[in-house]
């Protein structure tokens, strides 16, 4: 009879400093370089792992494959020139970058955004969340060997991208929220088409529920994988669905209400088991919440009205010295912009806080110990890592 429990008798013991004593000469250990591209994530990041058999003893992350130096590039661009470039930081959901850059600049420059523009921004951010979750579910399925899920959800995501195209003209990068407002309001007939899309997505999610969340292979592999202790949440900087999976109801939309979220009615999805399966379930319920939110927004969003505040000539726009921090809830957790201005026409410094920064480096290096090699990709995917947030 084969025991499914790993043999712990040969597991390396910890030394006085708490580090495992690893005798590389013994031939029991091998080093493996996983990445930079693997099914665990959108984006490039590698793991340098030390493995014994098929169990990971130790891992080091290597990031920087997608570093473009945005924070430096934005320092030599005017405020309005930062607006088209900042969306390129995060491909899965670029709109949070536009919104946060605009929000920090508006706060520092003292601009009031019209009501219709706030509704429009809320709609765009929720649509962005929807398409990002759909892409993520596909990735989660593929990293556990269920490629079919990706075929369905990426197709459904394309429908959302088509709706984006109707409003903004772009599929991935929309650049629709310049500082001061939005570029346009809803096109004609948008409500009906968006409602149809939402109905389709709900239908797809029913199929995904059957094919992924009730799939015994997926359940066996993901239940118990990647446990995050609720006590770790604050100390390790865990935010978003990863924290909510651990039973801590932390959602920027509820806690620090921005845009029109205080006027909308929604519940924050919280899990309690804090493993990969719970996190996936939290994300699935969050996706359905988003569908519901978009329906509410579509009912209340105005069709006409002022949508752009009066902004000074952007070519000569100087913002007085100051600094501020704004945050928003993206699919991966707390996304934030820290903007410092110095009275000139250029920002002094813009620092982007991506949620993957804390999830993918220190937390992952801690969590990946003792994980089976085949589950490493699934674990990274369940943290919803997106490397360009780390290196920008």
């Amino acid at each position: 009879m084969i025991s499914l429990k790993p043999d712990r008798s040969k597991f390396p013991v910890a030394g006085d400093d708490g580090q495992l004593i690893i005798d590389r000469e013994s031939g029991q250990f091998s080093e493996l370089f996983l990445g930079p591209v693997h099914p665990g994530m959108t984006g490039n990041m590698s793991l340098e792992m030390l493995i014994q058999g098929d169990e990971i003893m130790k891992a080091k992350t290597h990031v920087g494959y997608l570093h473009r130096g945005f924070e430096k590039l934005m320092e030599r661009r005017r405020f309005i020139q930062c607006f088209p470039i900042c969306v390129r930081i995060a491909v899965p959901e670029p709109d949070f970058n536009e919104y946060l850059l605009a929000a920090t600049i508006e706060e520092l420059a003292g601009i009031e955004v019209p009501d219709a523009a706030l509704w429009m921004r809320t709609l765009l951010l929720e649509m962005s969340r929807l398409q990002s979750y759909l892409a993520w579910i596909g990735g989660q399925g593929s990293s556990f060997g269920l490629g079919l899920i990706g075929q369905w959800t990426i197709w459904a995501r394309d429908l959302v991208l088509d709706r984006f195209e109707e409003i903004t003209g772009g599929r991935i990068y929309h650049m629709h929220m310049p500082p001061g407002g939005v570029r346009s309001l809803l096109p004609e007939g948008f409500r009906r088409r968006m409602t149809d899309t939402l109905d389709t997505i709900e239908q797809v999610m029913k199929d995904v529920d059957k094919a992924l969340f009730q799939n015994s292979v997926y359940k066996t592999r993901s239940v118990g994988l990647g446990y995050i202790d609720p006590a770790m949440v604050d100390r390790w900087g865990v935010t978003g669905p990863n924290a909510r999976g651990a039973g801590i109801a932390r959602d920027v939309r509820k806690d620090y209400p921005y845009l029109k979220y205080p006027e909308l009615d929604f519940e924050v999805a919280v899990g309690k088991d804090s493993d990969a399966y719970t996190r996936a379930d939290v994300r699935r319920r969050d996706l359905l919440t988003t569908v519901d939110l978009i329906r509410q927004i579509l009912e209340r969003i105005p069709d006409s009205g002022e949508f752009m505040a009066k902004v000074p000539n952007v070519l000569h726009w100087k913002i007085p010295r100051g600094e501020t921090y704004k945050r928003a809830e993206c699919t991966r957790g707390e996304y934030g912009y820290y903007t410092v201005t110095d009275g000139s026409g250029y920002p002094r410094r813009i620092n982007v806080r991506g949620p993957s920064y804390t999830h993918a480096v220190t937390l992952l290096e801690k969590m990946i110990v003792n994980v089976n090699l085949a589950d490493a990709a699934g674990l990274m995917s369940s943290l919803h890592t997106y490397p360009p947030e780390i290196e920008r």
Partner: protein
Amino acid sequence: MQQILDALKQSVMIEDVRKQRDDLVFITVSEAQAVSAITHLRDRANFTHLVILTAVDWLEEGLFQLTYLLNNPAEKKDIGVRVMIDREKAQMESIHHLWPAAATYQRELREMFGISFPGSPRLNETFILDEGWDGPPPYRRDFDTLKYSEETYFPRPGRSTNDPAEYMKSMLYPEVDND
């Protein structure tokens, strides 16, 4: 918020308080007292979440500004602790014992700004940049990224870049002498 600052003032000298929003305050403390102020905020005032740790280069004043943004998830408040350190002797006490994630931020600051945090784990390993990087820390303001790029990466001829303000002025009002 005022109570938190009053309690903090009893142990730490606060040089400057600037209220940005109701839930966001920036305070300036000295380099020597920064870590004790942060520890006080974390342990006594419940600011348990380190949001960002970043630096701002004030080249003209010869200073680096380190910003530790702390968040109190229960009361939903933020405090930005600003520390001014000397640009020539860029060194700061490490806070990786308070938050493990701070080690990553400090590695980034070491690489991108050249600020040293003695004792922080894996501080001198390359983090983001390529191992062959031989330029100065790139986020410092005296590093000219355009010049470096033009000298290194074979720019394709034919591309021109204009300052938008100057360009629009010269296109719209060519008769005005641009001073």
